[in-house]
């Protein structure tokens, strides 16, 4: 796609009418008509309540919904402000819907948002998912304020988590990104986020945007690209994240493909940045986090263990191409343990992840296959993590995660060595 055809003529016409704005809120939809109205209302109320003086526009790129999502967005664009104790907004609130051409993932929708933000000279862009059930107007404030008032370029969310939720983030994405990129962002695949207009323009101009990362991969790319380019990061507490959609039901394989795959790819793109980098920066966190112990997520540990065992047993021929013989031996060994005493130790897990990343880099086998081979091992790690922390309090879990992060940090030289080794 050429640069000048990013935006359709009709979309441009709508944007010209909106013209200069301070805030762009992006709400990409695809068959979300049952939830999106509430989300739109929350956004508009949030804008009216917390940004009454800022000029804002809600842009809704629709991926060709057949259930009238875009119409639902338009229909929800006149909420009853008085009913939620918010004075009528001072300004006209624009809600622009447009079709984006792609069918796969959000990449095209994001590109449109970057371009629109650039065109309108927006100071802040916010990204909100259309399938949220727990969104409140306060989210807008939490995401926008750090950009507009405190001069941050990228605001990652912090969600209130159930224990054992977000295992992929905690065991892989978060510590790996922190080790490589040196920023302690709790949710590197935050689906709600905000970024400055400056950063939107950078994303738009960045060569790697054209790779069209699949699904949530685009979010990983945004997070890491912002870090690698040295933008100011912070995070903001939003509360629990509850959604109504198929996204959460997306199977593990796809999730790993999209997220871990993109992270490995981003490691290639940003290798000149992370290989030489050392140390870690605190990322300021805004918002009040209530002390609230949510029920632990329900996870079928037995099934995960069984799938791990079978995976290791069956995939020997594939794994031997990816990981080192010692690692494979160690993994095979632990897969023979009894479930009750099963332990996938931190150092082995980190080593495995690093070897996968390096093998991905060297394309030792088809990259999709490589990521698929990671899935059973990850299952084993999750199972072990749950076993280890079954009786642990929140603080204990935090301590465990901290030591995992240190493990990542310690083995970084090993990663670099494998990474640079010729195939």
């Amino acid at each position, binding site marked *: 796609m050429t640069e000048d055809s990013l935006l359709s003529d009709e979309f441009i016409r709508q944007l010209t009418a909106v013209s200069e704005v301070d805030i762009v809120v992006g709400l990409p939809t695809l*068959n979300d008509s049952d939830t999106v109205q509430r989300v739109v209302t929350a956004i508009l109320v949030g804008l009216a309540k917390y940004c009454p003086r800022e000029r804002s526009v809600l842009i809704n790129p629709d991926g060709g*919904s*057949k*259930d009238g999502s875009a119409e639902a967005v338009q229909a929800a664009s006149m909420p009853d402000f008085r009913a939620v104790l918010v004075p009528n907004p001072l300004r006209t609130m624009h809600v622009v819907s447009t079709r984006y051409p792609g*069918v796969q993932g959000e990449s095209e929708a994001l590109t449109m948002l970057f371009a629109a933000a650039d065109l309108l000279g927006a100071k802040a862009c916010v990204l909100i998912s259309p399938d949220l059930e727990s969104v409140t107007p306060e989210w807008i404030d939490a995401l926008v304020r750090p950009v507009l008032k405190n001069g941050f370029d990228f605001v990652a969310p912090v969600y209130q988590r*159930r224990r*054992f*939720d*977000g*295992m*992929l*983030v905690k065991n892989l994405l978060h510590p790996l990104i922190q080790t490589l990129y040196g920023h302690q962002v709790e949710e590197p*695949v935050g689906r709600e986020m905000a970024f400055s207009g400056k950063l939107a323009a950078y994303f738009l101009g960045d060569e790697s945007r054209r790779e069209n990362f699949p699904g*949530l991969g685009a979010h990983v790319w945004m997070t890491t690209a912002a870090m690698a380019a040295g933008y100011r990061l912070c995070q903001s507490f939003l509360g629990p994240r509850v959604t109504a*959609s*198929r996204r*959460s*039901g*997306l*199977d*593990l*394989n*796809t*999730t*790993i493909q999209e*997220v871990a795959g993109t992270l490995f790819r981003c490691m290639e793109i940003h290798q000149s940045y992370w290989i030489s980098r050392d140390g870690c920066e605190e990322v300021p966190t805004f918002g009040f986090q209530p002390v609230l112990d949510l029920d632990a*997520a*329900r*996870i*079928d540990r037995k*099934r*995960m263990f*069984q*799938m791990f065992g*079978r*995976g290791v047993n*069956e*995939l020997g021929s*594939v794994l031997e*191409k990816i990981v080192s013989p010692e690692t494979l031996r160690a993994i095979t060994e632990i897969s023979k343990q009894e479930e009750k005493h099963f332990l996938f130790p931190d150092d082995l897990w980190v080593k495995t992840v690093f070897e996968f990343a390096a093998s991905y880099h*060297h*394309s*030792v*086998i*088809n*990259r999709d*296959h490589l990521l*698929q*081979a990671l*899935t*059973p091992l990850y299952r084993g790690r*999750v199972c072990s993590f749950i076993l280890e922390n079954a009786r642990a309090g929140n603080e204990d879990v935090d301590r465990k995660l901290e030591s995992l992060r240190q493990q990542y940090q310690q083995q970084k030289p090993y990663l670099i060595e494998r990474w640079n080794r010729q*195939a």
Partner: protein
Amino acid sequence: MRELVITSLRGALTSVSDLLARALPRLLAGAIIVLAGWVIARIVEAILRRLLVLARFNRLFERKGLSRALSSAALPSAAEMIARIIFWLLWVSFILVGVNALGIVALQQEVSDFVSLLPQFIVALLIIFFGFLIANFLSRAALLAAVNANSPSPRLVGSFVRFMVLLLFVSMGLERIRLGRGVVLVAFAVSFGAIMLGLAIAFGLGGRHVARRILERRFAADNGERREEKDDEGSHL
């Protein structure tokens, strides 16, 4: 009698020595051609490899995404491949020239037959070679899909897919060089089914979310409620 024997022996000896005297130079020449051919082919190969590396030939392929395909099929880099292919082509043609130089009529017939068959042979080899690649790829895809779908005996599925795909390609290759024509038809029927099965398994298991997405998009409009089966794995993100 004795003389006759001697004469015939001598005659035989003479003819053998004659034969030898006539054949030896040819044999020598043939051997020299083959040897020299090997050396020349090696030199050409080395020069070519160096040139290709200097010309950053691999980069070109990287951009086209081909080198990833090669390495995922466990093959060397593109430059290396081309260098090796050229080596083998050169050397084989030197061998043929050498055999021809022997001047044995029957062999000459065979060689000319072989030369006329050579293009077909190369094509057949290529087909079988790609068959290996595809079979490897599909069997691995099936294996991984089966593992991740927690289905029983994934390795069996993988091997089955590999066997069936190989069968198809080998029979296609043999068909090329007009061997075992009868077998080919049957083998083709069998292998076609196998491929379809392999693809169905690979797509059905490995690509089930794609399939679901397609179906969903297709039917979302008329299907008001959208029930999601959530696996008992919590949310990983």
